[in-house]
């Protein structure tokens, strides 16, 4: 079966019969509501097609939108007139996670996305390409393909349409042999891991990125009072992925297939708080420390839940090298999980956070900043500077930048003139005070545009709007972490053998 010619056939079919056959890899504008509840037609890529009785559903990824907005759509939302077929070279989708494969400037202009603009790529060039390769189509081939397309999806995990380009420094993952996690996987520097490296990192190297993990697999999770729509794939037991709702015990996070099961489970589960040591409590906010080795079940359940909202992390390896800090909010029912961050027991790269998540119902209420603050408080106790593990997600970047900005501005603005001299501070000092790694301090100063070169030396300048903005932000700030309420003794994990 010749895949490229098949695409051509479909193209022809589209042209001649107006009978649309949208397959994986096609791009076309798809209707979605924006936050103002207005219609917009961003370009989207079809990742998967499924047939439920009566109709087809298409799993679409909106180009230049985060994956978390990917969704199943009905055919009515597809703008067939602007359908683009996958190019012969099975063009790598933009979202295949190849780092650096597409240079872009962070300061890029915001696209005029609110209009129904189709991003730069129109269908015309594609058509031209296709037409050059047109050969007399045969219906048989088309049928043949149509017949086989589900097979493609299932047997090849959808990778058939987009073989990974052989880029230098990156290789499509080969199934490693049994003992096959050799030096490759140990050393991140050679960049060709056969399995994710076994350091404490939870970073997904994206080598396992395929159609399965690119798609959300859980429809809905019920956790305590909340119903959450997962954002990303999470490796819950496969038989549970077909459920309309996955039920989680709010306290032990056990996954259950039905409300009845949850009810039964609750008669046996007497937890009313995360099963760890409470190391911080102030007001209703508590933090619990959970050892990923000692409390595997909870750690795994937590990871599974968190994976629903974290894109770049993987649960490839066990949780042993991690500590989990779960933030809870107390009410008369118990200590409800709000968010958490995980942390390597020993980090070789100064990471003080591996994964960090505020559960969606609690987002945008300052909890994220509290989590971040807490992670730096731990680093302060340890006497280290730390940085979150990369890559950051969009929300992660915004949250961290916001935290760093506020923390650094706080320090700068509190500096008082020293007997008439202009107050001054080194970057190292900022880093020491805040436990924020030097590089993050610099990037924040840069981002805030505070560093200037004046009369032969670098200076920090505080503009009016920066100061105002900061003061406004601090007013809205939640109660901060109170170091006095922290009961935490860092352990030297290197002396404990293996984690």
């Amino acid at each position, binding site marked *: 079966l010749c895949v490229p010619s098949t695409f051509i056939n479909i193209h022809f079919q589209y042209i001649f019969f107006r009978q649309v056959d949208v397959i994986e890899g096609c791009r076309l504008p798809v209707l979605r509501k924006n936050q103002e509840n207005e219609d917009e037609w961003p370009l989207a890529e079809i990742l998967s097609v499924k047939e439920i009785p009566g109709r087809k559903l298409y799993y679409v990824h909106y180009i230049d939108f*985060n994956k978390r*907005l990917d969704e199943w759509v009905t055919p009515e939302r597809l703008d067939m007139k602007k359908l683009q077929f996958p190019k012969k070279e099975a063009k790598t989708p933009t979202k295949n996670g190849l780092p650096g494969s597409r240079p872009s400037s962070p300061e890029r202009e915001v696209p005029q996305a609110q209009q129904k603009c189709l991003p730069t790529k129109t269908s015309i060039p594609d058509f031209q390409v296709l037409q050059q390769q047109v050969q007399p189509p045969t219906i048989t081939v088309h049928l043949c393909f149509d017949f086989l397309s589900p097979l493609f999806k299932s047997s090849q995990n959808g990778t058939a349409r987009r073989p990974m380009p052989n880029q230098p420094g990156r290789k499509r993952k080969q199934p490693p042999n049994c003992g096959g996690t050799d030096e490759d996987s140990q050393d991140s520097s050679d960049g060709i891991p056969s399995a994710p490296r076994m350091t404490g990192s939870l970073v997904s190297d994206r080598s396992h990125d395929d159609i399965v993990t690119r798609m959300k697999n859980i429809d809905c999770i019920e956790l305590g*009072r909340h119903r959450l729509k997962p954002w990303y794939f999470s490796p819950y037991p496969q038989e549970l992925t077909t459920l309309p709702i996955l039920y989680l015990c709010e306290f032990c996070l056990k996954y259950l297939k039905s409300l009845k099961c949850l009810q039964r489970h609750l008669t046996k589960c007497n937890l009313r708080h995360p099963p760890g040591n409470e190391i911080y409590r102030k007001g209703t906010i508590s933090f619990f420390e959970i050892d990923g080795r000692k409390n595997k079940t909870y750690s795994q359940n937590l990871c599974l839940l968190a994976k629903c909202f974290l894109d770049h992390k993987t649960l490839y390896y066990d949780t042993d090298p991690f500590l989990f800090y779960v933030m809870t909010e107390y009410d008369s029912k118990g200590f409800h999980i709000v968010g958490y961050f995980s942390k390597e027991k020993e980090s070789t790269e100064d990471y003080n956070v591996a994964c960090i998540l505020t559960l969606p119902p609690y987002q945008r209420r300052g909890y994220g900043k509290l989590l971040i603050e807490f992670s730096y408080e731990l680093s302060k106790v340890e006497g280290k500077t730390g940085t979150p593990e990369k890559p950051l997600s969009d929300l992660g970047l915004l949250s961290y930048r916001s935290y760093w900005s506020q923390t650094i501005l706080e320090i700068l603005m509190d500096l008082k003139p020293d007997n008439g001299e202009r107050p001054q*501070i080194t970057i*190292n000092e900022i880093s020491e005070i805040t436990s924020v790694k030097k590089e993050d301090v610099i990037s924040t100063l840069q981002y805030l545009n505070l560093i200037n070169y004046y009369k032969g030396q670098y200076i920090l*300048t505080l503009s009016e709007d920066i100061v105002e903005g900061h003061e*406004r932000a601090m007013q809205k700030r939640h109660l901060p972490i109170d170091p006095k309420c922290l009961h935490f003794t860092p352990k030297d994990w290197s002396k404990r053998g293996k984690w």
Partner: protein
Amino acid sequence: MSKLSFRARALDAAKPLPIYRNKDLPDLNDCVSINRAVPQMPTGMEKEEESEHHLQRAISAQSVFREKKENMVIPVPEAESNITYYDRLYKGELRIPKQLFHIQPLGLDNEQPDYDMDSEDEILLNRLNRKMEIKPIQFETMVDRLEKASTNQMVTITEAKLLLNEDDYLLKAVYDYWVRKRKNCRGPSLIPLIKLEKRDGSTNNDAYVAFRRRTEKMQTRKNRKNDEASYEKMLKLRREFSRTVTILEMIKRREKSKRELLHLTLEVVEKRYQMGDFTGEVLSEVTAPLAEKPVYTVPITVTNGNRHNHKAEIKIKSGGLPYHGYHHVSVKDEDPFDFVRPKKKYTRREPLCRPGRPAKRQHIVNKADIKQYDFHSSGEEDYPLSPTSEPDEENDPDGTFAFRRKAGCHYLPCLDQTSGLLWDHPELAGLDALRHRQSLTALSVPQRCVGLARRRVGRGGRVLLDRASSDLDGVLKQLDSGVFSSSFPKGLSDPQVPTQNHRTMPGSASSLTDLLSNIQALRWRFFRPRSTQGDGSGEGRTGRPSMDNRLSGGLFVHTKNSGSGELLLNPIVKTAGSTDCIISKTLDSAGAHFAASAVISAPGQVNNENKPDNTSVNGVVQPLGTSRPPHSTSTSQGGTGLDRSGRTPSSCGPLLPASHSTTPQSLPNHRGHGSAVSPAHHHHNARPSPSSLKLATMATSSLDRVPKVTPAISSMARDNHEPERLALNGISETTVPMEVT
């Protein structure tokens, strides 16, 4: 500022940065362009996503307004927080405790079934509840157990019955229901579980497999460099711990056996007491048939038990005298025997292992002594181990002297079947039994044959000779060393003798000549004093140890050696098929040197000097001849080999101790049997060395392998260099039935 052309210095994190307010610097705008000199830091995001326009919109909104506007946030899928049944679901309230929660390392909660009943199960439950009462938790526990017991295959109904201790009707109902439900189940288990990795690596790409173990390879980077080493250490530690567990297990078994033995012994004593069997007649009647198929467990425990007994007695008797010159005079008859008997009843071991035992015991004795001299390496080498018998045999006295296999040694299997010919003659049973445990033994001073005896090592390295009396004693008495020395050389000069005499019945040896021929024919082991090969320590002793053995009433023998070492002759009386008297001698540690050499030869068998070359000369029968045909041939060959190698007959040690002193060289003899012994050793003439000792032990130990040992006279070998030698004089005049251990 027009100085834009110069290059700004790099930003120095250690350099103080003055802080200005913008209003203080009206001319700041001029220098903005230099800002680029500071390298742009990466955001830490994936490049792909940095361009996502919700993010870009948010970032630009922030940079414009310095604050997020409501509509500028990054949209996320919605979440609802209005579960109405929440309060019904999560019942009860939690009062916040004053203390922070601290979780105990070990789970507090009792084991609850992981399986949670669903509504389908509830229907079944309701149906069942009409007939009997079954609680949900009970049902869940049942299913939980069934699930957990099923791996790839579901448990069968019979297994289920074992698994669940439930009423049959209920069990059947639940089991059938479970089977049906599981067949319809889409997942691999009714308890949804995370997919686990498979060892074959086939799941490495499976997106649903999570939490793989990280154990494949150790992290060796950076600060984790030591991990691999420590990991290996841990592995080793683990192995050793498991070995410890095994050993403890064995100890447990041993101690149990000992207790059993004790009980049986007690029983025997009681029974005998009731029967009035004070003379041991009944016992011997009973044991005689047993002796035909010798049970060699006996000597072992016997020795052990005895050793303690004797020690105790010695202590009492000797009073304050540390080591010197006390006589050990008394032996308790009953006890030691009683140790014997129950053992005889035991047939715990396969016959195969038995024959090796006595030899082994002796060997251990040997080793013990060697240890004193730090000759660890030898002796143990080619120990014919029947491993099965090992653990149990390690009764306490062996403790540190327990046999250990050595790397690079050949351990030959025991050749018990070869001794078969000895047992072909039932009429000889008693004697044979005796003979297989004891050896003919001669002492150097006075030069005489003490009859059948057996050596072992007592505490502190003393060598004890357990003498046994037999009806041959009369004959044996004539066989004192004087006789040997004069008569044997001629007779034994012919290496062919053993084979010629092969057919002679050892047991029927009622005359001296028969006996001699038996000895010659290697059917009887005979230990004689030899010219000594010493240990390397070279400690000279001047005292001439003399042994004075007296057997009083057949019960007591005491031996004394003058000089530095003393020998204790413990009279040990033993009743076997015939009445035995076993004389044991104890060498104390002061006499360690010669004790060592004695022991070396002791376990055994033929002494070095009378070995191959002397076999013929002295008429000492190599035990090998009878018990181990292959070896016997090799021995004799060894003899010839020696001749070939140019040894002069003169160097062959005569039996007489006196003559031995002139020919200390005995080692070559061992060449015959010990493959490990190299011919080169026979050049150690007159120069006793540790190696010679080792060789000796090696040789003897190889002999020890002989499963059924022909009795022989063992002689105490002595320190080299010393003209005087220790002689153990055994007198086996006892005819009184005695039992000793």
